[in-house]
């Protein structure tokens, strides 16, 4: 298990679509499993705040941005493939 690293994650979605709901659910599951207590998730709905899209260069939704630790990493899609999410976030999976 990772030690003192904190993961600051941002999930960009566009409205309450099936894809965005799935992404959020998938993300929560992955984080709870592998990063318990070390993460913070912020969900940004671009339909409500479109001006925030340019800042993180968001094109595709849903996009997960790992803002911390550096460097910035992006994962696009509904995060349904847990293995690839972990690779994308650069997280060591917890052995079960």
């Amino acid at each position, binding site marked *: 298990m990772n030690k003192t690293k904190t993961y600051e994650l941002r999930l*960009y979605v*566009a409205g309450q679509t099936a*894809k965005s709901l*799935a*992404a959020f659910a*998938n993300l929560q599951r992955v984080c709870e499993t592998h990063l318990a207590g070390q993460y913070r998730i912020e969900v940004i709905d*671009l*339909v409500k705040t*479109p*001006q925030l*899209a*340019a800042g993180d*260069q*968001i*094109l*595709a*939704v*849903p*996009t997960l941005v790992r803002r911390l630790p550096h*460097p*910035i*990493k*992006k*994962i*696009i*899609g*509904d*995060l*349904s*493939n847990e293995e*690839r*999410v972990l*690779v*994308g976030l650069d997280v060591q999976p917890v052995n079960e």
Partner: protein
Amino acid sequence: MTQKRRSESASALPKAPTGITGLDEITRGGLPARRPTLVCGSAGCGKTMLAMEFLVRGAVQFDEPGVFMMFEENAAELTANVRSLGFDLDQLMKQKKIALDYVHIERSEIEETGEYDLEGLFIRLGHAIDAIGAKRVVLDTVEALFAGLPNHGILRAELRRLFRWLKDRGMTAIITGEKGDGNMITRYGLEEYVADCVITLDHRVTEQISTRRLRVLKYRGSAHGTNEYPFLIGERGFSLLPITSLRLDHAAPAERLSTGIARLDEMLGGQGVFRGSSVHVSGSQGTGKTSIGAKFADAACRRGERALIFAYEESSAQIVRNMRSIGIDLAPWLEKGLLLIHASRPALSGLEQHLVAMHDTVKAFRPAVVVVDPISNLTLEHSETEVMPTLMRLIDFLKQQQITSLFTSLTTGGSGTSAPEDSQVGVSSLMDTWLLLRNVEFNGERNRLIYVLKSRGMAHSNQVREFVLSDAGIDLVDVYLGADRVLTGTARVAQAAHERSAAELRREDHERKLRQLAAKRKAIEAQIAALNAEGEAEAAEVKFAIAQETLQEKTTQQNSAAMAQLRGGGKGGNAPKKGPR
């Protein structure tokens, strides 16, 4: 307001004018309004510039704000790049006429997992459009996404949705794309989605000279020019060679212009050339073509008109210096802004691009007289069939603006042994007046001859004149016709001297004869006087003799009478009676 203009300009399909010189003419009014247009071409052929100018002119001239979404350059780079064309994007952004959005994907940062769409792009674009009330959109170059996003299936579906969405929102859009290989117009087949209007740009290099060309490949629902048109990215942006010049309907003013050389005007019906006509001066090396051109421009400036010289052989300063040597001072006109000398290397760009540059310069300077010195340098690398249409466009363009033009051209073939009429025939048929300069080599020197080969619509001299350049300027002198050839230069001067001395001799001869006559008359008069004197002397002698004799007789009579008296009687015994004595 824009709606109204659109319905006015087009009968069937509403069009959005680009404001780009020439492009609106080729497309008969502009790009399809509220629809996307695909502009494709290879790297560095001017796609971004075309799109940018479309947007800026739309915002400035047609009150249609626009969003520029770029995928390759960032905002600072783009702003710097287009500033060189005189567009101040910062200012336009402050005025909310232009919005820039830089979309960038770093493949290395991205991991793909599961389903997604590009709603984020739609939201960004929609947000920018709403922020400034945009009517125009540019996506430059949307294909960059193919490199950034691994799932091309999703991307293609989303692009199709994007172009549909742009149409639904009523955006007049330009989408740029890289030129594809083989049958593909663009590398990723964007033409599949954007099918209303396709414009291709091309940057070709032939004989080491590059020429940019534009072609409207497709324009659904509208007539359009189908040729390739050369274009230029100049100081004032994008510029296409307009095709209006292909019409043949320019006015023909009857006003005449002096060429600046009085004797030459005399040869051209006494009044010079028509305003708005074209004059072609051809001749071999060093026959004085440039000088005639400079004089022509000088004459225009003296009338207070603007003159423009395109120099392809000498720099501006060199022309001014050289012309001063024959008494033409161009410097004051340059200072006053009446004269502009546009000097450039012929090899700088292709013929078409030169002509586009000429167009731009003429449009900006608005001269009354244009001198091109020489056109032959421009046409050096090209075959005549290639040169004709482009030169025709220039000449007709000048005629339409009622600009009088003078073109010089160098003929090869030297000193009048070959027929100079042979060269430049194609170009010359476009010209109204053709002056031919020739070198004549004779008697150990070369001299210049000038004659009018043709001059449409006026009586013109059929005489050959000698063309003299001196400190005092340009002059035309009558030549002497010898037994088998015309006499020029020193031969002409010698002939003149010869004739002068002959006249002198004759005059002296006459005087001598008159003097002789006078002398003879005097001699005769003297003789007459002498004879008179002789006569008088003889008469006097005769008189004297008579008087003497008369006196003797008298004396004798008196003596006889006295003797008779003495002899007495007197009555009876006179002298005749001898017997009684």
